[in-house]
């Protein structure tokens, strides 16, 4: 899966988790929490959705990599390289 494809996957997950937010102008380098309503339970939703969709296991010590879109995509590239969008 390419970086662009991974970004689209994460964006779809964010749209489901935060349906009241307009994410069209989401900035990839800015932390999610500064741009949208996202608490710890929502954050766990991201982890859970990735687990369900692609069987990706994200250990708790890696949660910090999921703070921005850019860092999330970078973190997921090696984990999803063999996955199909």
């Amino acid at each position, binding site marked *: 899966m390419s970086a662009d494809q991974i970004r689209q996957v994460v964006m779809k997950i964010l749209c489901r*988790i*935060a*349906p*009241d937010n307009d994410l069209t102008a989401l900035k990839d380098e800015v932390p999610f929490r500064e741009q949208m309503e996202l608490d710890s*339970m929502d954050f*766990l*939703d991201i982890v*859970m959705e990735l687990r*369900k969709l692609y069987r990706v296991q994200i250990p708790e010590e890696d949660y910090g990599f999921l703070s921005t879109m850019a860092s999330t995509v970078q973190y997921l590239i090696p984990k999803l390289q063999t996955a199909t969008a």
Partner: protein
Amino acid sequence: MSDPNQRIVITGIGLTAPNGNSLAEYRANLLAGKSGVSKYEIRYIGETLAGVCHFDPLKYQKRKDVRRGTRAGSIAIYCANEAVQHSGLNWADVRKDRTGVFIGITEHGNVETENEIFEISKFNYDTSVWTHHHNPRTVANSPAGEVTLSLGITGPHLCIGAACAAGNAGFIQGLQMLRLGEVDLAIAGGVSESIHTFGIFAGFKSQGALATNSEPTKASRPFDLDRNGIVVAEGGGLVTLERLPDALKRGATIYGEIVGHAMNSDATDFVLPDPTRQAECMSLALSRAGIGAEAIDILSSHATATEQGDIEESLAIHKVFGDRASLAINNTKSFIGHAMGAAGALELLGNLPAFDDHFAHATINLDRPDPRCALPQIVANTPRKMDRVEYILNNSFGMLGINSAVIVKRYSGE
């Protein structure tokens, strides 16, 4: 009651029922004989019948809140906000730390648990995909807690598990908390999301107590020989309760005063009712109200359209009220089905406008009255014009032999 601060009045009403999303709409449909029962599909059961509500959850919730919470929570939030608006309270001025939320529930958590088991079944029952939302969704205080989040209430909140007596139990809890001085405003009543659990349908079906009918609106038939069981419904009914002096001070409209209540237990069977204890429950409520049975004008019956339940309640009512013709006995489940935790609340609230319009709404679908439910006072199929409506008694009974009765008096300014 000599101490005016012990007098508790209803000052706002919020509800959603299968045939109405406001008191005015609901009452109009009850008087017009309009049922809210429809065809309904649910996982594993397939097509069945249910009372389904059609309120707009987004009126008071964000989409994210709906997704994160529960159906019972959405119902409770809708009803609580509607009740507050209906009360005319200036919410900004209300002391949130002196406000409590007391919501009766028949059950809670079945829907969310079933959904999650279904979800992990797609993953070969891998529990690592079990949602982290499960516990906050299924704790027993969840619907009431969701109301506190919605309205910023910081006083106590509770859900009262009381099977199908829960609506009355919610009112009673609110009344008691006001009388104890624990709160100054109570949001109280009952809610149910039960149509979203297949288990309740399957359970009643296995028990031989799930209604079927080719015409959905004809399916809920309490006291009728052609009844064949319960129509499960969802819904909610919450009120604002205040002490009389507080309500008068702010010029509130008073929809009735709760003057009597009682709860007791059969202690005889898991499911079968006991008319002796039901009669004792009604008598205790009358005693606490300081009135005799002859004072009651409308009796809102609990009857669910199960054979034994209808017959036993009829015996209990007859024992307390005899054949007095001026009493009107009606049944709301014939319109909306059995709204479980909301049943007692919706059944009382739909009758309260009778204080003003002087009609007892009917029991619909009563084409062939069961002679074993020998109550000549049942209002069959068309509303009855009443000479007076001063007192309404609302019965609600439930499994494990829980009984409740609430008596509301028209507020006359005295």
